[in-house]
């Protein structure tokens, strides 16, 4: 539901504003169009059963469930968005005024009208045959248990209210706007992170705090929400600017100081990650371990896609090979050969095997053009899963019955890491993530990394510069494969069994979404992507914090991928170089515009927050 995040306007571009527009001076067609799009989307959300399915998840105790929250977002977003003024050279910028509120109200009302109409239709027609969610329960949810006319009125009103508040948000100055947004996000965030917070608070002996904040059966309590909003709003007002100054200061540091600061930050992050699990319960640790496994996978894919620009849609193959070879090497129940190696020894063999598989898959595809490569890697991914599942090789890999009773990972006889203790799993994953991060970081700055990026940007030029593109790309494939196999080996030890159904194409796609959402080519971005997507929404077979979303997970993943590509192809936390590549044209235009306005800054509509290199 990132869609609600209003784009933070960059204040340095604020030109003097003209007087507010009169309240009713609107491009009504635009409002009608935006409103109807929102209304259409609202009806779709309603018919997708989200309101009913998510109604069980309380956000703010007596008043708001997640089900209703998803119906509020769109009118609000439409109301906010309609007040948007295109920033272009020569177009007058008006100050916000009643115009925005009226527009928002109208827009939101149309959006709400979609649900009103739906309620009437639900009450009078039966379309349950094709539309499975055309049910009395949905009608009940929309009417709040009243007559259909009530739904008509109430949704128009709710839509208008949400839309108008979207408009009001435009009226606020940047400071109060930020405070408001922070307040809302803090409450929603607290509600989303409930199980995590309760679990952590238990470990830190802060139950008293969470007992007040959360109601007994889920949801933030009403007073808790108010206090939280007040505190976060206050913090936003007080802390405003400090964070930014700190960041700017950090970015302006040079040479040794900078790297010292970076090292400090990394150490701090590492310390938090090492200490936090000690206080967290199984729940948090399980979540962290799952996120960590995907970080590991995403870091591996990042080398392939992000650095070398090879769109590998069959990355799950390496995860599968890693898991299965670890299982065969360590489990006593492995059907054909069971050397029962200790996990660490097995890992070395696993790395060799996966590296060879990486070479084997990589060699034929490496010369292919981008799109061909995508489909061929996808094919390889499927072939590998089918082989593991087949009766033909079931004598080796157990076929459909998989391999079960895989022992935990024995680390030098000191400790055994298995799924029963997610904390140890997390530490193990953390160690491998550290390794993967270190390797990716070193590689990115090495000659090889530069060669990868050169290949990504233009293969022909790279070849002309004397880079052996085939070997370089093959190496990216192998490095990616090895990183993926770590994740696979840990996965086998963690779950204690491997089945072919854990390695569907879907996994490849989810990892790809994680990498792209986070920011291709950027390590921090990839980690943030996994944390947000896998942690909150959940992975292909891993529940996230919002487990209620599991039915809609893939729908959201799909929409997110499209939206991300359209709005922000460089991802959540972009890599600088990648941003430049993606916005080359815009930047060139900006530069040209600036030249035209004779050095006057702030001409072109630069949609990108400036990223400090």
């Amino acid at each position, binding site marked *: 539901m990132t869609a609600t995040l209003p784009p933070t306007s960059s204040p340095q571009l604020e030109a003097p504003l003209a007087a507010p527009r009169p309240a009713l001076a609107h491009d009504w067609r635009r409002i009608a169009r935006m409103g109807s799009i929102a209304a259409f989307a609202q009806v779709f959300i309603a018919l997708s059963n989200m309101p009913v399915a998510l109604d069980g998840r309380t956000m703010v105790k007596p008043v708001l469930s997640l089900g209703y929250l998803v119906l509020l977002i769109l009118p609000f977003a439409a109301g906010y968005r309609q007040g948007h003024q295109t920033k272009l050279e020569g177009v007058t910028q008006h100050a916000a005024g009643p115009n925005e509120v009226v527009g928002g109200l109208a827009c939101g009302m149309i959006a709400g009208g979609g649900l009103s109409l739906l309620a009437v239709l639900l009450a009078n027609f039966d379309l349950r045959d094709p539309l499975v969610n055309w049910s009395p329960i949905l009608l009940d949810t929309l009417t709040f248990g009243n007559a259909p006319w009530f739904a008509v009125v109430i949704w128009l009103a709710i839509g208008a209210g949400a839309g108008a508040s979207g408009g009001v948000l435009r009226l606020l100055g940047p400071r109060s706007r930020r405070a408001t947004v922070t307040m809302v996000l803090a409450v929603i965030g607290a509600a989303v992170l409930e199980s995590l917070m309760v679990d952590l608070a238990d470990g830190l002996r802060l139950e008293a705090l969470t007992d007040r904040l959360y109601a007994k059966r889920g949801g933030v309590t009403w007073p808790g929400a108010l206090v939280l909003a007040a505190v976060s709003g206050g913090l936003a007002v007080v802390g405003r600017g400090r964070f930014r100054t700190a960041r700017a200061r950090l970015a302006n540091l040079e040479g040794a100081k900078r790297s010292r600061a970076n090292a400090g930050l990394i150490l701090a992050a590492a310390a938090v990650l090492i200490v936090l699990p000690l206080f967290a319960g199984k729940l948090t640790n399980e979540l962290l371990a799952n996120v960590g496994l995907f970080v590991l996978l995403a870091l591996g894919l990042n080398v392939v896609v992000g650095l070398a620009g090879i769109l590998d849609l069959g990355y799950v193959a390496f995860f599968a090979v890693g898991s299965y070879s670890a299982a065969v090497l360590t489990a006593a129940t492995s059907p054909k050969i069971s050397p029962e190696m200790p996990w660490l020894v097995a890992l070395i063999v696993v790395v060799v095997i996966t590296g060879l598989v990486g070479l084997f898959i990589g060699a034929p595809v490496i010369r292919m053009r981008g799109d061909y490569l995508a489909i061929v890697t996808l094919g390889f991914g499927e072939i590998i899963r089918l082989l593991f599942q087949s009766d033909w090789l079931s004598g080796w890999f157990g076929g459909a019955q998989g391999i079960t009773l895989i022992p935990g990972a024995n680390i030098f006889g000191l400790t055994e890491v298995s799924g029963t203790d997610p904390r140890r799993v997390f530490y193990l994953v953390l160690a491998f993530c550290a390794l993967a991060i270190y390797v990716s970081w*070193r590689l990115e700055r090495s000659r090889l990394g530069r060669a990868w990026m050169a290949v990504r940007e233009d293969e022909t030029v790279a070849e002309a510069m004397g880079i052996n593109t085939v070997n370089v790309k093959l190496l990216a494939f192998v490095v990616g494969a090895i990183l993926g196999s770590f994740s696979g080996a840990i996965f086998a030890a963690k779950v204690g069994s491997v089945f072919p159904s854990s390695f569907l194409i879907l996994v490849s796609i989810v990892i790809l979404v994680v990498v792209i959402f986070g920011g291709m080519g950027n390590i921090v971005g990839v980690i943030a992507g996994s944390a947000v997507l896998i942690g909150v929404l959940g992975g292909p077979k891993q529940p996230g914090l919002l487990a209620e979303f599991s039915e809609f997970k893939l729908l959201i993943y799909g929409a997110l991928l499209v939206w991300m590509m359209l709005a922000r192809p460089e991802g959540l936390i972009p890599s600088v170089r990648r941003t430049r590549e993606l916005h080359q044209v815009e930047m060139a235009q900006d530069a040209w515009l600036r030249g035209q306005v004779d050095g006057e800054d702030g001409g072109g509509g630069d949609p990108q927050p400036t990223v400090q290199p």
Partner: protein
Amino acid sequence: MNWYGHLTKVRKGRGVISLVIALLAVFALLATSCGNDDDGDTVEAPEATQAPEAAEEPEATEAPAPAPDPRGNALGDGSLGIVEVEAGEAIQIRSLQAITGDVAGFGLPIDRAAYIAADDYGPIHGFDVDLGASLDDLCGADGGQAAAQTIVADDRVIGVLGTSCSGAAVAAAPLVTNAGMVMISGGNTSPALTSDLAGTAGPNHVKGYYRTAHNDLYQGAAMAKFVFGELGFTTAAAIHDGDPYTQGLAQAFSDAFEDEGGTMTGFSGVNKDDTDMVPVLTEIAAGSPEALFFPIFQPAGDFIADQAPGVSGLEDTVLLAADGLLNANYLPLPQTAGMYFSGPDQRFGENVNQSTGKTAADFTAEYESRYGEVPSSAFWAHGYDATILLLDAIAAASWIDDDTLMIDRQGVRDYLYGLRNFNGIIGTINCDAFGDCGSSKITVVQNLGGEENIEASLNNVIYSYEP
């Protein structure tokens, strides 16, 4: 082997150094993490009151010692710990089923049955039962493990109803039972989770795991005996879809059929997304079997039934399927008329659950009024009985001490292992030493065909098998 020739040139020595450093780093981190971990354990020891074995033992010895009276004849010896439910709190149990994805039609009725059963049962010794929100096993080991972690994080939970899929139970059962809880499944049928019916525990069997669903081996044997004995065929073939359940059942049938003296002329698999079944059917047709058993799911099951008669060599082959296809969506399809289906005895008829007095008819009426549809699989009955068993076990292993309900975890297990002749909706329930509590009665029905005959077909029992 000079692929690497160039690579080493690119990376020069630095690559090696950085790798060494990286490895060192990882070992250092591992060492610290292990250290931390051990520290963690020692630090945690005092607050480890959540760990059942270590922590609740003192309570256990404490509780009965001062006042042996209130305990009465509640079962158990406290060896797995005792859960205290204070006045005003509820007894915590959980439901863990496959409630999303393509198997939701199987898991959802079991999940919903648990809620209906808990409502029917009412309070235990005056304490309410709380099922919490349904958890999703995602029909796989990884999903089952993650959900089980969520459950065991709450040490108040006594028992778990689930899972739907055997694959999920393989990973979830050890976690749940290690925490002292019990797990009762209404959907798992894999022999690996209980026993081979000859006294040998399955590889994935753990103490504290029970199920009301039948063991696959019964169903495989029932179908084999039906085909060999009743239909009088000596050749048969089987098709599965790569799912552990279907593959296991097809294998069980195949083994049992050969034990009977028949010949398996083919054993093959399809993929769940396949639509064109002509190739697999041609593969099977090469052996000209008299019967073809495909214990799979929809939609692949639709295609096999549809295309089999058109394949040369299979025109007269009798088609057989199992409980995965025995549902209201599949039976009305024109191509399935006359097919045989094995499955648990669904003639629940006048069976009454002895603890709640509910019959199948009462249940379906209530289900329909609650969820606006009829249950999409017959396993609701197993889910219902499983829930009642758990609640009965809790009632038998608990006592009130000073307004606090004490529940003995070991007592819950003792009750279940000792259960004999319990009348449930699925029939008479006896638990064996490996947790198989299901009614072992398997029936084979023949589809009469058509939308209007669904009910009649389900009751059209041709053969029934009870070892």
